[in-house]
């Protein structure tokens, strides 16, 4: 049975089933207590983790999200079960760190990662249309660079002790979440109001996330790759899974009464469409240059990929920066007249990615031992 299942989730029916399952479970997580149109959001949840451990002090968004932990550990279980544990590292890690950093900065201007953009769409949030449009443009720019020879060089196989670092960090966060130690510094922080205070029961969230991590690893699910592959090689395989996610979430939202159509008044969202679009252009480009959406980076970390692990850490640090330096957007109804350093951060991030796109090219970057 295991052998027959081995390749199923990488097939077209397989990835569609996984997408449907993720969409349904995301809607369930929202029903179970996660914030509106945020059953899953890799960017928001990594930001919440950054807050919980004190890397930023934005009180409404601090919580040790078990979903992030479950994604990594579920993928790790799948990798070991199907002999796909591949500890590897060495492909321009500092660049990947900064790509994670800027991907998060961009996502927090839109107020969501690609997963959340899809879930916001499935919840009736019209602002997500501009976010998804920005994501497509960002990925398309990334494809332009990839076609032009952009690459970050090869990774190398390494020891399991290195490949285990991010999964062990996640397990450590899980222990902190379960035991909630109190330290003299004041950490851990858990929001008493705002999105950080809205969360499903730990075991429900962890269980669902472990399942998603497992099946997403098997199916190679990737929201950025879905767009990239259509543009790059006209392959709709990954996009079929993504469309299934939207359908699954939409149907469950309809059943749960979680559908609210419109632009104004959407949960944890704002209506500045230029920033919705621009933030996701940056995020999409950064994910494309790093080779995976934020969910995929978590799943690859679970496979032992140390470069994906450093991208994840870059995202967490980026979230801390975004809140400490006022680049993260503020959701409706508190839209300030001043958008903080968000627009400037998008410009800096785009400049960084464009410089990378033009300079990280050629056979020398691909040199082998």
């Amino acid at each position, binding site marked *: 049975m295991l052998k027959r299942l081995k*390749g199923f989730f*990488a097939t077209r029916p397989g990835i569609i089933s996984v997408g449907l399952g993720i969409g349904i479970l995301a809607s369930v997580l929202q029903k179970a207590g996660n914030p509106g149109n945020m059953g899953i959001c890799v960017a928001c949840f990594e930001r919440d983790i950054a807050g919980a451990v004190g890397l930023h002090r934005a009180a409404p968004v601090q919580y040790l999200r078990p979903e992030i932990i479950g994604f990594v550990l579920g993928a790790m279980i799948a990798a070991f079960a*199907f*002999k*796909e*544990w*591949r500890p*590897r590292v*060495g*492909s321009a890690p500092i660049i990947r760190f900064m790509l994670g950093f800027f991907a998060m900065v961009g996502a927090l201007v839109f107020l969501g990662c690609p997963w959340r953009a899809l879930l916001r769409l499935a919840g009736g949030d019209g602002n997500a249309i501009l976010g998804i449009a920005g994501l497509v443009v960002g990925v398309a720019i990334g494809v332009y660079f*990839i*076609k032009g020879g952009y*690459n*970050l060089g*090869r*990774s*190398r*196989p390494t020891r399991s002790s290195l490949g285990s670092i991010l999964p062990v960090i996640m397990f450590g966060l899980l222990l902190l979440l379960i035991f909630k130690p109190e330290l003299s510094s004041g950490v851990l922080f858990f929001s008493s109001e705002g999105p950080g205070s809205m969360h499903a029961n730990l075991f429900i969230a962890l269980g669902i996330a472990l399942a998603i991590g497992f099946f997403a690893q098997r199916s*190679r699910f*990737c929201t950025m*790759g879905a767009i*990239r*592959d259509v543009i*790059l*090689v*006209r*392959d709709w*395989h990954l996009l079929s899974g993504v469309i299934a996610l939207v359908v699954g979430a939409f149907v469950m939202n309809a059943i749960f009464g979680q559908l609210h159509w419109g632009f104004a008044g959407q949960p944890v969202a704002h209506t500045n469409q230029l920033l919705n679009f621009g933030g996701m252009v940056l995020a999409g480009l950064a994910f494309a240059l*790093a*080779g*995976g959406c934020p969910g995929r980076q978590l799943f690859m970390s679970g*496979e032992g990929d140390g*470069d994906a692990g450093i991208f994840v850490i870059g995202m967490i640090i980026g979230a801390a920066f975004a809140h400490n330096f006022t680049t993260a957007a503020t959701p409706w109804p508190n839209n300030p007249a001043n958008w903080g350093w968000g627009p400037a951060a998008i410009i800096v991030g785009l400049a960084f990615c464009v410089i990378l796109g033009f300079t990280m090219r050629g056979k020398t970057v*691909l040199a*082998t031992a």
Partner: protein
Amino acid sequence: MADVLDLRGLSCPLPVVETRKKILGSSPGGSFEVLVETGTSRDNVIRMAHNESCDVKVTTRETEAEEEYLLTITRK
């Protein structure tokens, strides 16, 4: 004699991009080999090769620490 394209260690989507370039540059009946080391790269390259009307034969090689996949791609 088949060429071997060593694509181990390259991150997504480079294995697909490099293999596709090789396919489009080869004539019908021509064949070459591609070496990848993750299941993801293997599955992605196979799917792309089939989309480009190629036959693919997969040979799994056990190395010291892990598996590698030698894909023999023949353009129809």
